């Protein structure tokens, strides 16, 4: 790859960070069901009940967002004045969880909406800010909450009804990565994790209209971004220990592998989906977890640690988002998806 670099871009959609930022800290706040899942011990705080003592689930979600950032900052001994930028978002209208948390945190703030791709989008932009010298220390965050998502997108919780087999469960979780530029000399919990490149996704829509089948709706975007990344960088799947997707779930992952095969990309057992990892089969969550908190929790609680320890050398972290709204669905529109990816590796 090094001999194909021309400035900061490579190919159509990929950015190369020649002065890469390093992820120095992370934190995850997770809900009770997530805490009982296979990765429960990886999370910094597991809530006993999903309102976390607040009056509403929305208030709980913004508290989770805020505390994910604060916990990550505390772990690296950082104060507000050390942070140059907070990047992040959530699934709610007008990203109120992120906005109101940012109000409390009082950091310069760039709110993002990428639906469930927000964690990757925030790392991508954070990586750009650090590589370009526009910031020395950034916090990249995403949060989601099962109950707030149900209220906004689906049916009231007390309504009796059945889920379809392709439905996924929105994860109650908030995850934050703190990344710093090369000049950073302070404390850190990670010393070996770098954001070396990123691929900006394009909106991809193969016409899936079923809002209960998000995995199938988003899989084309993931395949598109992976293909673009590999073509832009001249790399192959073998150059990565893991190709991680955010929340395609069981069926979406199957569709993703099929679409990649059609593009001549064989994932050779190197694919991992955060939605499949966060809940166990026994927890009966249909096709797996979803939501931007899903990829945020798995990355910040589990994957970064594995890179740090050397179990993983290089991963391509691709979170996928379904860019629909309840209104677009009611107007019989299909579900467009997007996937952003960042390369996280040891150096």
């Amino acid at each position, binding site marked *: 790859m090094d001999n194909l670099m021309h400035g900061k871009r490579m190919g159509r959609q990929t950015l190369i960070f020649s002065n890469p930022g390093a992820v120095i800290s992370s934190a995850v706040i997770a809900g009770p069901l997530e805490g009982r899942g296979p990765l429960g011990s990886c999370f910094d705080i597991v809530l006993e009940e999903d309102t976390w003592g607040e009056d509403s689930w929305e208030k709980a979600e913004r508290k989770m967002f805020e505390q994910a950032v604060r916990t990550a900052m505390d772990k690296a001994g950082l104060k507000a004045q050390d942070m140059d930028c907070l990047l992040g978002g959530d699934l709610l209208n007008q990203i109120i969880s992120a906005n109101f948390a940012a109000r409390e945190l009082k950091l310069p703030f760039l709110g993002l909406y990428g639906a469930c791709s927000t964690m990757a989008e925030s790392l991508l932009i954070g990586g750009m800010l650090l590589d370009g010298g526009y910031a020395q220390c950034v916090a990249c965050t995403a949060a989601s909450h099962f109950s707030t998502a149900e209220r906004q997108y689906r049916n009231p*919780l007390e*309504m*009796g009804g059945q889920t379809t087999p392709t439905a996924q469960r929105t994860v109650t979780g908030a995850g934050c990565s703190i990344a710093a530029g090369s000049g950073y000399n302070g404390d850190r919990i990670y010393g070996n994790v770098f954001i070396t490149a990123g691929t900006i996704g394009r909106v991809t*829509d*193969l*016409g*899936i209209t079923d809002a209960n089948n998000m995995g199938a709706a988003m899989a084309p975007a993931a395949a598109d971004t992976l293909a673009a990344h590999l073509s832009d960088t001249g790399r192959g799947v073998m150059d990565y220990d893991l190709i991680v997707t955010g929340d395609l779930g069981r*069926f979406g992952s199957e569709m993703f592998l099929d679409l990649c095969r059609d593009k001549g990309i064989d994932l050779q057992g190197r694919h991992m989906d955060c939605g499949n990892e966060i809940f166990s089969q026994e927890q009966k969550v249909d096709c797996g977890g979803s939501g931007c908190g899903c990829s945020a929790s798995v990355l910040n609680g589990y994957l970064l640690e594995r890179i740090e320890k050397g179990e993983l050398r290089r991963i391509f972290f691709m979170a996928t988002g379904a860019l629909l709204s309840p209104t677009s669905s009611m107007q*019989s529109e299909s579900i467009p998806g997007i996937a952003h990816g960042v390369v996280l590796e040891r150096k």
Partner: protein
Amino acid sequence: MANKNITPEQKEYQQHVKDRMPRSKTFSQCVRAFISGGIICCIGQLVRNMGETLLMLNEKDTAAFTAIVMVFLGASLTGFGVYDKIGAWSGAGSIVPITGFANSIVSPAMEFKREGFITGTAAKMFTIAGPVLVYGVGSSVLAGLIYALLKP
């Protein structure tokens, strides 16, 4: 509108998804709906019989009494957080009877309490049941008109 000019790539993918999607267990769900719906209707019949024999109500009052009790049961079970658990097993069996109608009104009323009693509870109460009321009342008006015009 979606899929106005559907490309071959889109068509192929949609067919692929359709072929490979995990299927709902339709037969067992139908059986469950039959059993649970049947049980709810039997309870309704019991209530009706009580109305007729114990309370000695006339035809019209019995019907009203039955509906009142069943709606009350549906609403209470929703309030106690039990109806959604029944629904997860029963599917259509608990949605279709009048208890399901009560559930569809009480559940958003409960959910949106946090946005206040006016803009929350009262405004959102009929988000699910609204179409049932509109088209139910509408079609009965139509049926009534036709009856009025055609009766001998």
